[in-house]
């Protein structure tokens, strides 16, 4: 396919995903996020090559989370949102049409957010993202390469923690009870972990400098990250559809921002 999202410039993609995420967060009706969620799903399944099963696996936690949000919002919706007739009530809860609507809206918004994040994460190479931040957003090379070097540390840290756990087990340190014990145990893990982490970070920094890295923004870029027409096209698509959805929902009288009906 020609228009794969994975080839879209990461910085632009990020903005194109963040704006709808924030704006949808302000809408309190059901229609707007529902429509946009459908659009995100269409984009995800036509313009990326993420296998459906993998996507579903990753998306299912969002479903659970979203229904949780929806449920609690429905029960605890405050005065502004809980207008309308009472649908049913039990114990101390009174569920009104307004609170049901707000609840479902919250759930749908969480799903939108989840779907947008997944679309971004699953199609973006972390190295390219940082390089693009440096080349498009003028992030300083010091920070860029610092973070890139940091990526390599996560698995190393994990491995090291596992070894320290083992080593302590050998010494007969048992899982400690109580707050004091927990604090002690944390300290025992943290000291060697940090000592090693700092030493490794220092070594990496020195190795980078030894390869002629000075943090000077004036450097050549082997992997040129550019913003081409199609990157902007993607941006326009994401934002354009968002605006259309807003307009449509306004036109149909559904649009609700912060409890205010338009």
């Amino acid at each position, binding site marked *: 396919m020609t228009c794969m999202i994975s080839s879209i410039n990461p910085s632009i993609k990020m903005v194109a995903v963040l704006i709808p995420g924030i704006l949808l967060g302000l809408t309190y009706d059901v229609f707007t996020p529902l429509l946009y969620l459908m659009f995100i799903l269409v984009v995800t399944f036509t313009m990326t090559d993420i296998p459906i099963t993998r996507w579903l696996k990753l998306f299912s936690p969002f479903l659970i989370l979203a229904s949780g949000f929806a449920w609690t919002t429905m029960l605890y919706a405050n005065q502004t949102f809980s207008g309308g007739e009472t649908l049913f009530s039990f114990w101390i809860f009174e569920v009104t049409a307004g609170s049901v609507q707000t609840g479902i809206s919250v759930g749908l918004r969480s799903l939108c957010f989840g779907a947008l994040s997944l679309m971004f994460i699953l199609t973006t190479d972390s190295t390219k993202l940082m390089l693009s931040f440096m080349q498009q957003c003028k992030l300083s090379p010091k920070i860029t390469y610092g973070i*890139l070097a940091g990526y390599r540390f996560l698995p190393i840290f994990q491995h090291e923690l596992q070894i320290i756990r083992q080593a302590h087990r050998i010494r007969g340190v048992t899982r400690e009870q109580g707050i004091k014990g927990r604090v002690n145990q944390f300290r025992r893990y943290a000291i060697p972990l940090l000592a090693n982490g700092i030493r490794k970070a220092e070594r990496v920094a020195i190795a980078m400098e030894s*390869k002629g*890295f000075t943090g000077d923004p004036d450097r*050549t870029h082997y992997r040129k990250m550019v913003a081409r027409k199609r990157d902007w096209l993607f941006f326009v698509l994401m934002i354009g559809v968002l605006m259309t959805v807003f307009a449509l929902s306004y036109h149909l009288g559904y649009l609700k921002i912060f409890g205010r009906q338009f």
Partner: protein
Amino acid sequence: MKRLNGRQQPVLDVRNFSFSYDEIIEQPLFNRLNFTLNQNEITLLMGASGAGKSSLALCLNGLYPEAVEGTASGDIFFQGKNIQEFERGELTKEIGIVFQDPESQFCMITVEDELAFTLENRKIPASAIRKKIMEMLKAVGMEGFERHKIHELSGGEKQKIALAAVLLLEPKILILDEPTANMDPLSSLEFIRLVEEIQNVPQMSVLIIEHQARDWFEMIDRILLIGRDGHLLADDVPKHLFTKQKRLLKREGVFLPGEFSEVPAFRESRTQTSPSAEYVLSVRGLSFSRRKQEVLKNVNMDVRCGEFVVIAGENGAGKSTLIQVMAGLLSPDAGEVFFSGRLLKKWKENELRKRMGFVFQNPEHQFITDTVYEELTFGMKRNGLSEQEMETAAGELMEQFHLKELASCNPFALSGGQKRRLSVATVLDATPDILLFDEPTFGQDAATTMELMDYIMALQSKRKAIVFVTHDMDIADAADRVVVFKEGEVAFDGIPDSLWQKEELIRRARLRLPTRLRKKEGG
């Protein structure tokens, strides 16, 4: 050895150079060093661990003393120009360093990006970068690896990439800081041959920092020896140094290449005991997988009481995993481990730890408390010893491991050798029947290694079984039995002498002959 054509123009000239870390100013790391590095010459810098050899490398390329809290005096001239007159980042392009730890000298994920990083720093136009990367990968024998992720490479491959990245600087001086420290024997040899090959092409000066000369010996022109007091003790051609200055080298804890060594190899210094027929640990049909990858495949192995067993094999062959399973730190997917005739999982954790000791590669991982004394008595306290008993027992251990004056020091503040000694001492607080060691001699100098081996031999003579994972073939040579791993399977299990006859197997498992047999190797 290359011929030196008369007097050479020095590339680097070090005059009266001293350096000390601010916290220990009264004892400079190096004191009034005077030496030169010449074009097209290979120099070996030797000295005990902790002598500051690595710091010197960073002083030479101008990163120290700025990067640390340290003070330097004296002058260093690069091609006649004082290094202090160089702009930031200018000198580092002339003097490239390959560091010891392959894990912490990369900042990118893939090989290609890492190599491009160097070239981008040099402001090479983007269009020329790919060609240079490809040529360099070919030069270091890593063609076709450009898309590979660095963390998935083996130790030897990582160091080749590190070398490639540094060579892309096109430096006048190449510094190698113990580059083969954590490689299996064959990878180490391959790397050394690669350096030799590469040095022959451009007019480059090479400085190798190592505490053992043995494999580099053939190609080095000159040796510099830095003493524990920070003085330059010798600047000489290798043959002369190794024949005339043996006492000096020994005092400084430096390994002599086998043919010059008078110290008996570990093998000779050891009194062979006949192990009993009784098994202390048995492994039956063991399999273990990590992330769907089989690390151990149907492994059977026994350790007898009082036996010294070495486990050898290339990196990633499953050696460390095996001893972790043996110690009950990992549970196998299939198979059983028996300890003292009883299933390992039937043992109470507390009892098991008293009777089985495990020493990790990095001693720091084992430290739990704030002082050496508490560290030694930690286990005793848990076993309910009285204050009096603990004091005597800890006193004995400190005496034996030369830690007496350090009783109240923080374990993390000790030197490398002291940390190693403490980590061994802490597993001896109870009375273990078996001790498992995971590459305990990694990064240790001759003196520390020798000392550790002495302790181990002494322990073994007390009928304690010792299991050692190591790349050091001289240690393997001293074992009662060697078990060789190849891709998670036992490829050999027998006495060292019969292993040394299996040339094909040695090559396949990426091992080498021990020093005493190596002369025939023709290398």
